[in-house]
């Protein structure tokens, strides 16, 4: 394939600024109430995802605080078993499905196009649809909870406890259908991310120049596509067992409850990596930016991400060691589970090497990244312990595992996430957060976290099982539980200071420059916050760290219309210009389709006929969504006789 020709065009500053104004008009967000529901701007959709997920994070945190209050003292009567069982189910379901996965997806939708230098995401209407489905699912879960039909079988909903015989009412159905909502939202987001990274990259950004966070989002998206079908089977067969009396998991009729566990964990373990891998990408981003040098071992880091993704599918049985499976098989999963520490180790060593040879700046985002090292490494080590079959026989389903999973998920994902939110806050809002408040909130969260979860290791070792609403005095569990509760309160204060900082910065924060942290990736090349069209002019990329290493006066991409929402589609490997594509305009129909789908999914909890009649409204909505409107812009701009569109990369003012 030949390179696109570089044509010398006399581009003046005046031409560029006129083009920039035209682009801003063309890509302006939709207006009014209808416009609010029609939005296809990736920054707005991403921001909605992030804010909604953070709201669910707060709700999940409140549920956790209630649990900690109940467990502060033995035989406490603050919360009874019925509510407590709903609390831990809601907490786990919220944090996994409504916070961790969507917030990473939101960051991906917001930043992937900015990182790869694109005008927008691919398939923006699909992304909008994904957001509405996610929001509807979360609201549905919490409304159900308030109506006392909140799920109470744990975030895994094992049968037969969640089956028709032992799970009366609609609580288990609520859980299963929430899973359907989040599956749809995640799959949609994964497809959007993959297409954006594969096809919307700025010319010059070959695959080996893609920023680490975009790589992480890409790998995660592929994991979503392979993991989600398993949980879709699990939740759908569960709801079929409950709704129409199929017997997938009823052992009396030849079904098998262990089958459910396999299906759930075949998804459930990769799920952990859906949360963890984007955070690994965030870590690389933060370490590089605050070590002021290109990351050491780019290829190794990418390989580690891909290796983790593959191995992540081979570990699910370590959640089932106490089921009594054959020993040889179990040993295989022990080995696989321990070996996944190797790619994590490679990444940690590369980051250490980057700091070692760089110029480190201890800004608040970097502190969160350093917090990762302490917390995640401890979590990784306890992970090695529970990966061993014999040790897991003792530790499985105890507070040791509660400690372990919070060390890996909060240390491995939430700390990098908070660091990244702090890091990107100026880009998203145009305001600088307060450094001192940022430092205080880090220390409160760090100390509070360890005070909450470190004692839980010991609690598990001395026999406290998970998911108990109370415990008897005299087992030596009192002090440690009280310490954990005190830690939880400290964490809550830390989260509050973060919120105060964000609100303060929005109102009084000083205006942020385009690149306040002197970072290297493309999102910092545009204004803070970015204009609706993200970039103008679009300069061709010449290195992995364009803001550090690209020579001045790189060619500017021209030949893409600025009076229509036209984007440049590039080739997968070398990001050479391929063709122009008309990105969809705002549309209300993704929202309508999402609402119609929501109606069908909720109705189907009550009647199987919902799937028959309820699928008609979404079908109608989708017909309107995809209805062809007049002459396509492609016909207009690319007469067939011209063949492959000609693209010019023109030089312009430096």
């Amino acid at each position, binding site marked *: 394939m030949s390179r696109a020709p570089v044509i010398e065009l006399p581009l003046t500053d005046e031409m560029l600024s006129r083009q920039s104004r035209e682009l801003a008009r063309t890509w302006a967000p939709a207006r009014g109430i209808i416009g609010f529901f029609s939005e296809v701007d990736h920054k707005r959709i991403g921001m909605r995802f992030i804010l909604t997920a953070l709201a669910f994070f707060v709700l999940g945190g409140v549920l956790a605080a209630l649990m900690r209050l109940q467990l502060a003292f033995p035989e406490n009567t603050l919360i009874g078993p019925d509510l407590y069982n709903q609390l831990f189910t809601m907490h786990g379901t919220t944090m996994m499905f409504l916070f961790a996965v969507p917030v990473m997806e939101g960051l991906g939708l917001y930043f992937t196009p900015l990182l790869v230098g694109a005008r927008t995401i691919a398939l923006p209407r699909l992304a909008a649809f994904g957001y509405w489905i996610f929001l509807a699912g979360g609201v549905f879960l919490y409304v159900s909870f308030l109506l006392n039909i909140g799920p109470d079988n744990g975030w895994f909903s*094992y049968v*037969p406890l969640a089956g028709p015989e*032992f799970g009366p009412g609609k609580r288990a159905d609520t859980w299963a259908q929430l899973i359907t909502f989040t599956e749809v939202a995640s799959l949609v987001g994964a497809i959007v991310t993959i297409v954006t990274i594969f096809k919307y990259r700025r010319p010059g950004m070959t695959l080996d120049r893609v920023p680490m966070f975009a790589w992480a989002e890409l790998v995660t998206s592929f994991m979503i596509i392979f993991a989600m079908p398993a949980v879709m089977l699990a939740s759908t067969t569960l709801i079929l067992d409950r709704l129409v009396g199929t017997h997938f998991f009823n052992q009396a009729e030849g079904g098998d409850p262990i089958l459910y566990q396999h299906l759930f964990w075949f998804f459930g373990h990769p799920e952990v990596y859906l949360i963890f891998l984007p955070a690994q990408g965030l870590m690389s981003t933060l370490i590089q930016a605050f070590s002021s040098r290109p990351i050491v071992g780019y290829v190794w880091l990418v390989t580690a991400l891909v290796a983790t993704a593959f191995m992540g599918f081979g570990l699910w049985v370590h959640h089932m060691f106490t089921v009594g499976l054959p020993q040889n098989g179990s040993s295989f999963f022990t080995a696989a589970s321990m070996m996944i520490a190797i790619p994590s180790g490679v990444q940690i*060593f590369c980051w250490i090497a980057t700091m*070692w040879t760089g110029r480190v700046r201890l800004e608040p985002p970097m502190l969160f990244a350093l917090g990762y090292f302490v917390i995640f490494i401890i979590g990784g080590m306890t992970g090695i312990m529970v990966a061993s079959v014999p040790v897991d*026989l*003792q530790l499985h389903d105890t507070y040791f595992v509660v400690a372990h999973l919070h060390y890996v998920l909060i240390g491995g994902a939430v700390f990098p996430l908070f660091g990244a939110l702090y890091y990107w806050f100026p880009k998203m809002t145009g305001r600088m957060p307060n450094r001192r408040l940022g430092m205080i909130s880090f220390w409160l969260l760090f100390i509070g976290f360890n005070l909450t979860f470190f004692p839980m290791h010991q609690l598990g070792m001395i026999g406290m099982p998970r998911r108990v609403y109370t415990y008897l005095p005299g087992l030596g569990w009192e002090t440690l539980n009280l310490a954990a509760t005190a830690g939880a309160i400290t964490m809550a204060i830390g989260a509050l200071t973060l919120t105060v900082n964000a609100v303060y910065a929005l109102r009084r924060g000083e205006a942020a420059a385009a690149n306040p942290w002197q970072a290297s990736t493309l999102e910092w090349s545009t204004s803070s916050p970015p204009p609706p069209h993200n970039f103008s002019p679009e300069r061709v990329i010449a290195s992995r760290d364009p803001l550090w290493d690209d020579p001045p006066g790189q060619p500017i991409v021209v030949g893409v219309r600025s009076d229509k929402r036209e984007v440049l589609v590039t080739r997968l490997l070398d990001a050479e210009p391929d063709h122009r594509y008309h990105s969809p305009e705002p549309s209300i129909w993704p929202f309508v389709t999402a609402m119609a789908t929501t109606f069908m999914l909720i109705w189907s909890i009550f009647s199987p006929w919902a799937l028959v009649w309820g699928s008609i409204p979404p079908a109608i909505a989708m017909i309107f969504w995809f209805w062809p409107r007049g002459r396509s812009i492609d016909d207009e701009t690319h007469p067939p006789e011209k063949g492959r569109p000609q693209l010019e990369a023109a030089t312009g003012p430096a």
Partner: protein
Amino acid sequence: MLQSVLHAAGIQSARIEALWWVMFWVTTAVTLVVLALVVVAVRRGLAADAMDVTERSSLRRVAVGTVLTAVILLGLIGGSVITSRALASQRSADALMIEVTAYQWWWAVEYQHPEPEQRVRTANELHIPVGKTVAIKLLANDVIHSFWVPALHGKLDAIPGHEATLWLRADQAGVYRGQCAEYCGHQHAHMAFVVIAEPPDVFERWIQAQRQTAHAPATEQEQRGLHLVQRTACVMCHTIRGTAAGGRIAPDLTHFASRSTIGAGTRPRTREYLDQWIKDPQAIKPGNRMPTLGLSDADRSAIVAYLEQLR
């Protein structure tokens, strides 16, 4: 009475505890080394005094770290596999066979014997002889539960339609608390039991005593208690061998007063707690399957008197 992984009183738990301590020291050392590297890296990065190191030499060190990681992990995998095999080697043909069936939210216990009338049924309390291998055959009546006595062995799930066997041996006499470890619904928190490991002769005396039918009531009040038990809903669910009570969906009460707790370890077995329990079973352990019988105070104390003499 502790429920601790770190106070092994049997061969299986001792094997696991040994492996755990190996892992603890190895992982602690690794954590400290890596965190020390992080500290040094940050200090050098702050001073920015190592900026001339080439990426190539950095990566060589990353490779060394990775290889070391792999070697340590391989060692731990080896230790884990060896311990797994040792745990499996505890199987033995002349083990004492005990069938434990998990119910929401209590444990039915049946000591196996070739002659059916020699079998012993009890609940929420197991006696085992010290030094003898015991095979615990696990069944589940309703949902998934998990049988766990940390002092003696790791846990094993009881799954409806599946049968699993846990092989263990107590090496020190003592009373060891256990608890359901798989979330099983409303009262998962109150599904405990105790294992009493005792010298073989003491165990033999206990099992002989358990084989007897229920102790006949002596006093008039106790006799009235038996009468009431046989005339009320008690018999629908509970068995008291030697009486008309033959229900099988609740704990066997034949030798109720030889046990130490009520409500599957929820409360110690005292007259006061027993009276409270019968008065309002839902007060102490809300959601359990025992109904409120609406007995008068006098009737209740007669029943308590009868139950308390079932040694």
